[in-house]
């Protein structure tokens, strides 16, 4: 009983500290902007959960974070550090969009969406092939290659949006919208598109894969100790390939649901940095699917709340991201602090 209590505290206390840290930073920022922190807190909560519109907005943000963080967590579990999620989701968006436009009205809605879905996955895979090959064949660390690709992907989007796919009716560069057939259907009774459900399904599938299948066992073995895994007869290269392809596919789906579900057009800077926020969420959730779900929800609330703060009080929405990162930093520090003795300077 005492051990359960102790490990429970060890898991939860860092979160408490993280929460305190982000509240403190929130107070600091608001007071230095000469704004009333209590009003700020009020708007934060109202804008994230106050009415049905806000709640649905929160779930939409949550779905993006769930996909991005699941993508990161599965790659880390398999020993492949995929920080290229931002780029992969861009490619997912690019290919899903292009497919939706090219198919036009010719096929049924289901087929169109399925094709866009598949194309999106292909896009993600395209963006992970180079880092994967470089890692397997030349032992080049994937951290840098995946990161560089993050900078190339948005340029492709910019080209499409200002060039071949530009909507001439819009003053601000924006792509022509996807056909209605390609739009993700809504969950009956809500204004949420099924992409939200997809993100939960993917998260569940990842949990199932990792906890309940042999493949999951191999992935975790390779991720924690590749030398031992190889000695046990596990095909390390094959597992690495599988984990990275999975990770990139999941990441690309974030782009898919953003285009086919949320905005229905391709725009420059359509991503507020979901790929990077996903990394923070995954770390906050301690790399397990349930933790990641909760962390995504919390962060999504912060983003909706931040939007509200921006509208009502003029605080730039980046405050939400600052709070998010401050929180996960505090949690990470607290976790390290509690698990090891602190080295003295």
């Amino acid at each position, binding site marked *: 009983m005492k051990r359960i209590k102790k490990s429970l505290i060890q898991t939860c206390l860092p979160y408490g500290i993280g929460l305190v840290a982000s509240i403190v930073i929130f107070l600091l920022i608001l007071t230095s902007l000469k704004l009333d922190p209590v009003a700020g807190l009020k708007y934060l909560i109202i804008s994230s959960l106050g009415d049905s519109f806000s709640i649905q907005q929160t779930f939409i943000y949550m779905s993006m974070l769930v996909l991005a963080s699941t993508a990161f967590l599965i790659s880390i579990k398999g020993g492949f550090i995929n920080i290229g999620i931002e780029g992969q989701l861009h490619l997912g968006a690019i290919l899903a969009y292009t497919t939706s436009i090219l198919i036009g009205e010719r096929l049924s809605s289901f087929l169109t969406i399925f094709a866009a879905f598949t194309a999106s996955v292909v896009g993600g895979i395209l963006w992970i092939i180079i880092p994967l090959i470089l890692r397997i064949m030349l032992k080049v660390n994937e951290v840098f290659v995946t990161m560089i*690709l993050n900078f*190339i992907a948005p340029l492709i989007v910019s080209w499409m949006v200002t060039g071949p796919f530009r909507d001439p009716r819009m003053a601000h560069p924006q792509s022509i919208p996807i056909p209605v057939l390609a739009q993700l259907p809504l969950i009956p009774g809500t204004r949420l598109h099924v992409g939200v459900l997809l993100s939960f399904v993917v998260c569940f599938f990842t949990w199932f894969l990792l906890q309940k299948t042999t493949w999951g066992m191999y992935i975790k073995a390779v991720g924690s100790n590749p030398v031992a895994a190889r000695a046990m007869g596990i095909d390390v290269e094959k597992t690495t390939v599988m984990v990275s392809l999975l990770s990139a596919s999941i990441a690309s789906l974030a782009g898919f649901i953003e285009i086919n579900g949320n905005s229905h057009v391709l725009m420059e800077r359509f991503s507020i940095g979901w790929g*990077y926020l996903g990394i923070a969420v995954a770390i906050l959730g301690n790399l397990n699917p349930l933790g990641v779900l909760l962390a995504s929800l919390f962060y999504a609330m912060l983003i909706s709340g931040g939007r509200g703060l921006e509208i009502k009080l003029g605080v730039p929405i*980046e405050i939400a991201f*600052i709070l998010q990162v401050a929180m996960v930093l505090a949690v990470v520090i607290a976790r390290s602090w509690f698990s090891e003795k602190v*080295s003295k*300077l």
Partner: protein
Amino acid sequence: MIDTITSILSSSLPLMAPILIAGLGELIAERAGVINLGVEGIMSVSSLIALVVTYFSGDYALGFLSGIGVGAVFGLAYAFIVVTIAVNQLIAGLLFFIFGQNIASFIYRLVIKYQVPSVNPLPNVEIPVVKELPIIGRVFFSQPLYVYVSLFLVFVIRVVLHKTSWGLAIRSAGENPEAVAAAGINVNLLRFICVVVGSMFAGFAGAVISVGYIGLYQTGLIAGRGWLAIIAVIVAGWNPINLLLSSWVLGLGFSTAASLLTLRGGIAQYYFYLTLPYVFSLFVVLLIPGRRRGPAALTVPYKRR
């Protein structure tokens, strides 16, 4: 043709400088055993602050100093987190990167509500007589001050790292911290200092980009150059002279793209050229031989027994 080549070469040096400077800082930290993946984020904030300070005070030196100061602040925080508390360096660095980007965006959004700051970028320092030499004159003897500063820093770091006892301690801290501790040196204090110094270099590099090179700030100004600095260090095998070469190669990638951008071309060409520095850097990454090891204790926290 000669003109184009000369201009590509001569504009490659101001573009190399921030990568080189940030890289030198990163090199110091990594030789001591600590990797800082947050360089891009630190540069984002320092470039913004340096520009704002220069704009409102009119004092360039103050601007550069404040950029360095920003680096110092981030460095202190990062060093505390990864050296004192021994948080995983990859995680902490990534989070600092994201943190820095968002802090910079936040401050920028606040600032532009009032004014859009811009300053005149630094002019070239012309070295008389030699600057008239064909090609070489323009490339090597007509550069902004920070280019010469960066080259000087290479020399300084090379000497300090390889010819002084402190340099030996730093290098050993990254290879075999136990040996350094046995010699009576406080390993973590040494690492702490190296991280802060490295971060100050990154801060300086950010200021070079905004105040020195372009004279303004926008989101995405750093454009991956913090990451390229880290890559440059690895490609250079953690050696300052090689770092000069690897940063210069990366700078060439940017200056070639910039030169191509001035050619006539449509939208497709425009964005294609913008991707060139990154595509180029992917090839540069290939130059990292898989088997080359970095400092043996890199990313490994040192615990006092």
